[in-house]
């Protein structure tokens, strides 16, 4: 296929100038739908980070003093082992706690640098037989006054509320995002149809003089793909802003219940890349469908 980039650019800028408002409208719709979808993903990543300690059925945590002795630690261990109401538990030592802390606050250097391994409280993550909140409360209270215990935190209803609430919000984001996605798809399809119509004379002449099918198709496909790609790519600042907003809403208390309600920066980037790719795919699919319907070469 003989193809010159210069020609391609000229064709593209022709069609851009001809239907600028349509192009912008389509771009915005893609941007909005990608933003809604991406925001939902960022939210669930943020909730996951914030509630990281509470996964796999952990219902309460016994923090030891950073300087608790071996004897104090093994007395708590024995008590846990002997209690029939405790299903299982794991011990998180200073180093592991430090690593966890660093990852929970990976986006704020200030907080991370303010602590050392020695400052971290080791802890027991405990899964009781029953997740009923009064049972958990009673069990947790039983450890509060033991020697060497610094603090006992139970996965009170707040955490569960946050988890179910965010699942619900997420579902709404997903449904709205999907609906917007479909309208974005239809808009790209219509933009390409309009472009094909506006350029039908050129297309007719190209066919008559023997331009290859791909030569005729590619500019349309690029236009559609570009709209999707740009729409997806422009979500980055919005997703970052959204992550900051979340983080303002749910500032964590560091040690106990919640870490910062904030998705890690790399996760936001991954989500952004996924949205950009999805946008490009949608633009391409819509233009290919439009071409197959309205351009008989």
């Amino acid at each position, binding site marked *: *296929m*003989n*193809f*010159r980039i210069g*020609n391609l650019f000229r064709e593209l800028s*022709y069609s851009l100038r001809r239907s600028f408002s349509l192009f912008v409208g389509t771009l915005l719709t893609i941007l909005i739908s990608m933003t809604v979808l991406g925001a939902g993903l960022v939210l669930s990543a943020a909730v996951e980070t914030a509630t990281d300690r509470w996964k796999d059925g952990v219902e309460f945590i016994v923090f030891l003093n950073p300087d608790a002795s071996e004897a104090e630690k093994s007395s708590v261990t024995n008590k846990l082992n002997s209690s029939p109401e405790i299903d299982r538990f794991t011990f998180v030592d200073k180093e592991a706690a430090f690593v966890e802390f660093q990852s929970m606050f990976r986006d704020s250097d200030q907080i991370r640098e303010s602590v050392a391994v020695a400052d971290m409280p080791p802890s027991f993550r405990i899964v009781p037989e029953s997740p009923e909140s009064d049972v958990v409360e009673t069990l947790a209270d039983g450890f509060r006054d033991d020697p060497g215990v610094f603090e006992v935190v139970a996965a009170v209803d707040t955490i569960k509320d946050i988890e179910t609430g965010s699942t619900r919000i997420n579902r709404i984001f997903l449904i709205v995002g999907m609906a917007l996605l479909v309208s974005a798809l239809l808009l790209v399809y219509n933009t390409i149809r309009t472009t094909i119509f506006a350029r039908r*004379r*050129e297309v*007719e*002449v*190209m*066919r*008559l*003089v*023997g*331009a*290859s*099918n791909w*030569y*005729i198709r590619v500019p349309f496909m690029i236009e559609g793909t570009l709209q999707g790609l740009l729409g997806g790519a422009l979500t980055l600042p919005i997703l970052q802003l959204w992550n900051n907003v979340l983080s303002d809403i749910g500032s964590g208390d560091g040690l106990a219940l919640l870490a910062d309600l904030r998705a890690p920066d790399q996760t936001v980037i991954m989500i952004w890349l996924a949205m950009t790719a999805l946008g490009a795919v949608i633009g391409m699919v819509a233009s290919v469908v439009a071409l197959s319907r309205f351009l008989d070469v």
Partner: protein
Amino acid sequence: MIKLENVSKVYKGDVVALRNITCEIQKGEFVFLVGPSGSGKSTFMRLLNKEESPDNGVIYVAGKDIGRLSGWRVPFLRRNIGCIFQDFKLLDNRTVSQNVAFALEVIGRPRHVISTQVPAILELVGLSKKADNYPEELSGGEQQRVSIARAFVNRPLILLADEPTGNLDPATSVGIMKLLDRINKTGTTVVMATHDRGIVDTMRKRVIELDSGNLARDQARGVYE
């Protein structure tokens, strides 16, 4: 150069546009296609560059059975066939030379080829002075010359002209016919559909007459009727 064997074309709705046509056109011939409106002249032409496919029969162009041509090869067939029309089909947002260059650009001809071929062909059709004008600034005859330049710039083997003088006055038509005759003299096969009795009768070329899709007459050095 062109050979039709028992070719029939039926459009949907049972419109028989061509019925069992057999004929052969040699390289370098000049052929008029005549016949009343709706007799199948345009259909005949559209079959040759595979814009339409016959329902029956075989068509050879330059020795190849074009019915067996796969889709991606059709553009290469069309590069050997120039087409001109009654309505010129020029692009009004491009100048004369851009219109002609377009035909070469879209088949991937290199820039240096385009920059020598375009002025040469505009010289041939006598439009060098109008190279930078837009189609709307030209007379009908001049516009048809541009479309001839565009059809011929790639030196096709065959030139199909569907009523090229249909929109032109007699004097201008004579100019266009002289140009087509010159192109034919370079060895290009020319097939021209027309209703213009005067032109057919003065040129005295081969005449193929269609009537309701039937081949009614095939006459060397013929006249309109």
